[in-house]
C-alpha cells in the first residue's frame, strides 16, 4: 500500500513536471512555420509522431525536425520562411507522407493551405512605403494579385507620385513565406506569422454595411427610415434632402444664453 502510494506520487511528480514543461514547449515561436495542412497547434502535437517522413519527402529540403533545445516542440517539423520558404508543390508530398494525419490529408489544393499569414509588419522601412518601386514581395508571390496586391496611394511627400503599397489578403495567402524570404531589406519588412497572431477579429455581431448590401443585392435599410444627422452648413446655405436644424439650434442657444 505504502509502496503503491510512493510510486504513484513519484511518477505523478514526474508527470506534473513533464506536463508543465510540455505546456511551455507547446508555444510555437513566430519564426517557425508548420508544413502545409498542419492541424491546429494543440491537435498537431497530439497527432504528430515526430517520424520526419514529411521532412524526407519534401523535394526542396525545406523542413527540419526540431532538436532538443530548439524553441519548437522536440521532433516536430517546421521551416523558417526567411531561410527557405515553402515551394507549394501541387501534389503536396509532405502531406501525403504523413502517416497519422497530423498534416491533414483533406488538403489537396496547395493554394488552400494556411501555413501562416504574411504581414507587412514594418511600414517605416518597406521600400514601397517609402515611395520606391521595389515590388519584390508582390512579384514573387505564387498568388500574385490575389494574395498580395499593390494598393495605390497618393505620395504626400513628393505630392506628384503614387505609393504602391503591398497589401496581403488573408483569404488568399497560404503563408508559404516567399515574400518574407525575398524581401530585399536586411531584416524583412514582410513576415509570415501564425494566423492567430496575425489576424484581427471583429465582434461576431459586427456587420459591414456595404458587404451586407452586396450579399442581399439591395440595401437592408429602407431609405425613408434613415435618420439623417445634422450637417453643419455655412449660415444661410440649404442643402436639398438634408435636415438643417441649424436655425432651430441657433434659436435655442440664444434662448439659453441669459442663464
Amino acid at each position, binding site marked *: 500500500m505504502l509502496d503503491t502510494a510512493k510510486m*504513484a506520487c513519484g511518477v505523478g511528480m514526474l508527470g506534473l513536471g513533464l506536463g508543465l514543461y510540455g505546456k511551455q514547449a507547446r508555444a510555437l515561436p513566430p519564426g517557425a512555420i508548420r508544413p502545409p495542412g498542419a492541424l491546429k497547434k*494543440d491537435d498537431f502535437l497530439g497527432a504528430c509522431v515526430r517520424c520526419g517522413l514529411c521532412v524526407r519527402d519534401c523535394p526542396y529540403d525545406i523542413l527540419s*525536425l526540431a532538436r532538443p533545445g530548439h524553441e519548437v516542440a522536440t521532433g516536430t517539423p517546421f521551416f523558417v520562411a526567411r531561410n527557405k520558404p515553402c515551394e507549394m508543390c501541387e501534389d503536396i508530398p509532405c502531406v501525403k507522407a504523413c502517416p497519422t494525419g497530423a498534416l491533414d490529408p483533406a488538403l489537396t489544393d496547395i493554394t488552400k493551405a494556411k501555413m501562416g499569414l504574411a504581414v507587412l509588419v514594418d511600414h517605416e522601412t518597406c521600400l514601397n512605403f517609402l515611395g520606391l518601386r521595389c515590388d519584390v514581395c508582390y512579384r514573387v508571390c505564387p498568388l500574385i494579385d490575389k494574395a498580395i496586391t499593390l494598393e495605390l496611394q497618393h505620395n504626400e511627400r513628393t505630392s506628384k507620385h503614387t505609393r504602391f503599397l503591398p497589401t496581403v489578403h488573408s483569404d488568399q495567402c497560404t503563408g508559404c513565406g516567399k515574400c518574407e524570404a525575398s524581401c530585399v531589406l536586411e531584416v524583412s519588412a514582410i513576415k509570415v506569422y501564425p494566423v492567430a497572431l496575425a489576424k484581427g477579429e471583429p465582434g461576431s455581431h459586427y456587420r459591414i454595411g456595404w458587404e451586407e448590401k452586396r450579399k442581399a443585392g439591395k440595401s437592408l435599410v429602407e431609405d425613408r427610415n434613415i435618420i439623417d444627422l445634422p450637417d453643419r452648413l455655412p449660415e444661410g446655405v440649404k442643402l436639398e434632402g438634408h435636415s438643417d436644424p441649424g436655425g432651430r439650434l441657433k434659436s435655442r442657444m440664444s434662448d439659453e444664453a441669459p442663464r
Partner: protein
Amino acid sequence: MTAIGIEAIQAKGWWATHRWLLLRRLSQLSVMALFMAGPWLGLWLVKGNLNHSRTLDVLPMTDPLVLIQSLAAGHAVERNALLGLAVVLLFYLIIGGRAYCSWVCPVNVVTDAAAWLRRRIGIRGSAHISRSARYWILGMTLALAAITGSIAWEMINPVSMLHRGLIFGMGAGWMVILAVLLFDLFVMSRGWCGHLCPVGACFSLIGRWSLLRVSAERRDSCNNCMDCFAVCPEPQVLRSPLKGAAKGAGPVVMSPNCTNCGRCIDICSKDVFTLSSRFNNPVSMAGVSATAPK
C-alpha cells in the same frame, strides 16, 4: 570467485561466449545503418525513425507507445500509422516483445555500456526502485497524453531522442543520453531499461503473448556459477525457469520482461540455455510428483 564468463570462455572459447552479444550489436548497427543510408549515402531504404518508418516506400512500421499516446490524446490516426502498428505487433509477437529493446533500440548500447563499466569499475551500490515503476510511467505517459492532448512523453523520451537525433540532428539531446548513461552507471544498476523506460514496458506487454523464448532446457546441468544472473539485464526473470523445477515451473522464460538478448546462452559454460518457443515448456515432473502426495 572467477570473473564473469571466464568459465564459459575456457569451456567454449571466446567466440561462442560472445556470439549472441555480437549478433545483437550487429543487429543494432544494421538497423541504424539502414536508417542512416538515406541521409548519408542517398540510399533511401528506410525513411523516418523508430517512431514511424517506411521501408522501401511500402512497408510502414509504427512504435506502439507513440501511437497509443496519440490515440489517448484524442487524435483519429490515419491508416498508414495503424498499418505500421499491425506490422510491428505481428513482428514482435513472433520474435518476443522486448527483443526490440535488445536487438533494435539504440539506448540499449548506452545502458549496456553503463552496465559493463559498472562491472569493470566495480560499482556496487544501487538505488532501489521497483521494476514495476516502468508500468506506472507507462500509465503516466498515457494519462498525460489524455490530459494535455499532446504526445508529451516525446518531449523527453531518450529512445526516440537518440535515434531521431542520430538521423535528423541531435541538438541538446546528447545531454539526456549522457544523463541516462550516468544514471545507470552511478545511481541505479540497469536503471533506465530495467526499471523506468515506458517504451520497453509497452513492448513487454506485447511480449506477454510472444512466441520466441529463451529456455533453460538443460537446467539439470546448472552448476550454480550465477554468471547468467550477473549478465542478465532482467535477472528476476531467470529464477523460476532455472531454479523452479521443484515447484513445477517449466524451463521456458515466460516473463514478458526477458529481452531475448541471449546473453545467458552465451555466458553459460554448461549450455543450459537455448532459444525455444513458449509452447515447448513441459511442466517439470519433479514438481508434480513432489506435490502429488499432499
